[in-house]
């Protein structure tokens, strides 16, 4: 008697209709969440590109400053060598010129060439300037620009995209369960029960899969949604 009541077609119609409504709502929520994750991936990519743009601009300016200093530093070094040659000359006019070069020209050039031309740490053993070291030091003076990390943003975007892929699989499973429940609604007898069982099974599988994917990726991001 109880068995008969449970399989009453009218009651089953209502039960399946409620299940369809529940699965539809879950599928809609899953599609929404999948889109949010896709949107987060796009945001992270956008942030990475903006950071790369800012970092590039800062580096370009850094290299410009370094090579400007290098230009003055090399001129200073060459004019210093010239002044020494003038000093060692027997020509008194050149001796006097050397004094003036030291007094008026070299200090200005040295000032403009600093710190590349004034600090020994930037002089390599072969006599050339260590421009890479000067560039690294120059960039370190702006820690906010140095902290820009496009690769980290791209990595985050890739993880969001990967999550989006798996969430899509979960959403597809939910949509498939909806189809089986739809079949159960229009069929009768044992076929209805089989289809409903399949629908519920696939729904639960899809839901579990979706939740596992969410938990795994959220934990891998350190709790960030």
């Amino acid at each position, binding site marked *: 008697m109880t068995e008969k009541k449970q399989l009453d077609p009218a009651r089953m119609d209502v039960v399946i209709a409620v299940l369809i409504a529940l699965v539809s709502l879950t599928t809609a929520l899953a599609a929404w969440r999948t889109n949010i994750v896709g949107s987060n991936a796009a945001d992270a990519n956008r942030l990475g590109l903006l950071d790369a743009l800012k970092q590039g601009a800062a580096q*370009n300016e850094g290299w410009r400053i370094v090579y400007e200093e290098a230009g003055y530093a090399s001129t200073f070094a*060459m004019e210093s060598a010239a002044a020494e040659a003038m000093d060692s000359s027997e020509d008194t006019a*050149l001796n006097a010129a050397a004094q003036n070069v030291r007094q008026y020209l070299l200090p200005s050039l040295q000032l403009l060439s600093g710190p590349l031309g004034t600090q020994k740490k930037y002089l390599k053993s072969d006599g050339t300037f260590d421009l890479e070291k000067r560039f690294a030091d120059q960039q370190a003076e702006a820690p906010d620009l140095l902290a820009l990390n496009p690769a980290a943003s791209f990595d985050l975007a890739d993880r969001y995209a990967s999550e989006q892929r798996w969430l899509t699989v979960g959403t597809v499973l939910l949509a498939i369960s909806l189809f089986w429940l739809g079949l159960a609604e229009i069929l009768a007898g044992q076929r209805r029960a089989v289809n409903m069982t399949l629908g519920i099974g696939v729904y639960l599988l899809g839901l579990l899969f979706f939740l596992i994917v969410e938990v795994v990726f959220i934990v891998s991001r350190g709790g960030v949604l």
Partner: protein
Amino acid sequence: MNETTATPNTDRFRVLILVLTLLNTIFAAALAGLQVDANIRADRANRDSQYYALLMANELVRVGHQSAYDFELFTTTVKDAQQSLVMGLTALELEQDGEEESAAKLQSQSEVAQARSDKGIALSRLYTDPRYAPTEPDGIPDLEAYLADQSKTPNDLVAKQNTATDQYHRWDNKAGSYIAVLSILAIAFFLLGLAQSTAHMRLFFAISALGIMALAAAWTGFIVIS
């Protein structure tokens, strides 16, 4: 008698239609997944392409600064060396003509220019880096090797950018094609719905839907392997 035989046939076709609808749903769901995947790959390739373009532009700016500095130093060095040579030769001529005072002054100036040039050579990458340094005394640096090295990194980045752009077009075209196949599957859904609601033309609509599904499957296969 006819009615009793017609009813099971109709039921059989209804089951066939339900199975076809189920297959179509699974097909559409899988296709939606493929479309999302293609879109993600296209987005990533598009991002990489833009990133490499940025890196390449930055590298060109850096190489521009470096080349300007290296060549400025090189030309100054060569100019000073030539001035020194000219003044030295002139000093010798003056000495031969008996103008020893002028010759001595010019000789001193020649030494000053040479000192300037020597310092420039000591500072120049073109003279100190073994990849470019002259192989013989008073030789000219290997400027071709220098220019080849200077353009190598930007060229590598351009190659990577082009590859990423090609990947972007490839996956973007795939994503677009998957959308087209999904639209075709929507037509199959429509035909299966018609087959469900009519008894008279049920088989015709079911076969039409099956044909469209087969076409969509073939197209999907072509997209996947392309």
